[in-house]
């Protein structure tokens, strides 16, 4: 019961942090708040018993991503150009996506309920049947690489895309950036 209250408090703090990141026009401050965001979500993952995910989130989100953000900040200016215009096409894209996500919640079994698939037959099936079905002796590997194969493929695609983006930002020389920024300002 007390864990639920802790979850609610952490989610509340996450909402405050994300609103604050959105409101910042100083990119350095936004980077710092991103570090806080990933530490908070790592705590949330620990509360949800996903300790491995929390581990990855802390190492990647609070460690490497922060350093990559700072490396990118070294190449560009600190201030974001403030745009006050409301983008209608963005709103049209975001609001239906939000409704679709909330609609998708209906299918998910309630958190921690005893009649969830994972509590009834799924874990047994993985333990007893996976070596016959997949042929990999390691249970975790067979779940990640075969039962959740599409999920893992999506994750790898996301990481690859992010890596390409960062490399494109960092790979250019400094002179190019100054040229771009000066042209936009004049």
């Amino acid at each position, binding site marked *: 019961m007390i864990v639920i209250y*802790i979850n609610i408090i952490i989610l509340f703090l996450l909402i405050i942090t994300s609103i604050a990141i959105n409101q910042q026009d100083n990119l350095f*401050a936004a980077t710092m708040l991103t570090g806080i965001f990933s530490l*908070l979500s*790592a705590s949330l993952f*620990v*509360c949800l018993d996903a300790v491995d995910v929390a*581990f990855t989130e802390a190492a990647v989100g*609070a460690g490497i991503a*922060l350093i990559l953000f700072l490396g990118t900040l070294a190449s560009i200016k600190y201030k974001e150009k403030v745009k006050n215009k409301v983008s209608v096409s963005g709103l049209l894209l975001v609001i239906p996506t939000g409704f679709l996500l909330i609609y998708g919640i209906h299918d998910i079994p309630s958190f921690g309920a005893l009649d969830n698939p994972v509590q009834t037959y799924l874990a047994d099936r993985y333990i007893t049947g996976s070596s016959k079905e997949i042929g990999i002796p390691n249970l975790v590997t067979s779940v990640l690489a075969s039962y959740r194969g599409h999920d893992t493929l999506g994750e790898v695609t996301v990481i690859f895309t992010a890596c390409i983006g960062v490399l494109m930002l960092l790979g250019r020389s400094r002179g190019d950036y100054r040229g771009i920024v000066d042209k936009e300002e004049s």
Partner: protein
Amino acid sequence: MFEISTFIILFSMFLALVSAIIGKTVYDKILAVNIFGTVTVLFIALFGFLTKRPEFLDIALVYALINFISTIAILKFFEYGDMSSSSIEKEEGDI
């Protein structure tokens, strides 16, 4: 007992977040993030004892190490304005 301390830790998380948001200078924000990392380490350690699984203490230790590395990276960024430069010419040496 652990419940009360967990909620106090969560409240100090909130205070660190507020100081990160309303802090005027860059150094306020760096300090707030560092405090937040320390409080997260405390929270994870306490949460392990709260749910009667103190094995989480190892994770809290790793979090402390990661927090230290990112703080050093931020401070190095401020000292040199760059992530790739080294301080071999300086007498103090690299961090």
